[in-house]
């Protein structure tokens, strides 16, 4: 998968593209570590994520927890209907800040 990182002051926008599963999730976890240093907000743009497995969800939870430890926050934007369905099915939809596109 490809992952784009964009910084604007202390806001980091992360745009993974493809499938976030047990193969690709460790890459995202590893790349996130240096990127979130000094950041107050992480925006996860899931517009181009086709599928997310439990491993992918773990990285989302870990990022959310890492930001909270740093006194910052994370939010999810542009999640497609299928991704929203997975978040809802796993009980995580209300556990994250998910910004609706509507």
């Amino acid at each position, binding site marked *: 998968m490809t992952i784009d990182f964009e910084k604007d002051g202390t806001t980091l926008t992360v745009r993974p593209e493809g499938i976030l599963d047990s193969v690709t999730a460790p890459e995202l976890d590893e790349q996130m570590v240096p990127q979130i240093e000094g950041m107050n907000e992480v925006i996860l743009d899931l517009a181009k994520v086709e599928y997310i497995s439990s491993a992918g969800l773990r990285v989302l939870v870990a990022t959310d927890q890492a930001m909270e430890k740093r006194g910052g926050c994370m939010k999810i934007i542009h999640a497609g209907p299928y991704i929203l369905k997975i978040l809802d099915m796993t009980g995580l939809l*209300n556990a994250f800040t998910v910004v609706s596109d509507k």
Partner: protein
Amino acid sequence: MESNKQNGGGRGNDFLLEKRLRTEAPDLHRRVADCVTVLKQTLKSYETWFPFFTDHSVLHSMDVLEFCNRILGDQAEKLSPQECYVLIMSCYLHDIGMGISEKDYLFFRDQLDWPGWHAEHPERDEAQFIRDYHQDFSGFLIRKYADVLEIPDEDLIFAIVQVSRGHRKTDLFDPAAYPDLQVPDGVIRTAYLAAVLRLADEIDMGSDRNPELLFDLSGLTEQKDIDNFGVHESIRTVEVREDRIILHVLPKEPRFIPLVEETAEKILKTLEYCRKTASDRSGLRIQQEKVEIKIIRTEEDPA
């Protein structure tokens, strides 16, 4: 580096229990979702007692749940919706005792004979007592906070308590402790569910157990902590196939190889126990039969 996809990409077995619950018991699914939101915060409290321990947060719960889905495979279709609910909740709650509050700990500890344990182990501290008995502390907390967790009735409370406790040490062959509960819409086979959970918990040994985002290992000083984390780091992934469990290993240092082998042996013992529980105590199966270690070859390895 050799590809280490889990379970052949496994979209088919992803979220089996969650899908069934959402479709067939939406009220129970809603209760689980509400719990997850709360537990995402609550489960972090294990760090109070165990600041240098491997992850016991909601991340571990999610791992265990995923492993349950993979262990079950096609057996998941044979579970009742209540069983799906009990197993999912137990995945989230089985280690809640590790983060017990001081107040609850002082309230419950004498029920576990703290004075007797302390007399026998004067060199050990209260954190170790909690660690030794955390499955029972989890049981106490689930029952005490059943209303907050919105567990709807006594049968489900009992089942979740027992299955959660069953992730370690308890005797899954005891029919009084692990009965088949007849409930209005089906049955809850507590021994089988506990066996699946025990195995799933045992195999959560991969490096992603302690994500780099949350764990800075450079500050560890105690040898046992270094060894513990080193074993996790060496096991890059745990793959659950229909007939076996595979540890994909890239040893952090050569000295971790025998520790990984010990870990594989321990997993095999648990697998054998859980398979026997399933076959003797229920009409369901645990299909995995063996544990393998596969060493990951890198580009630097000699041909």
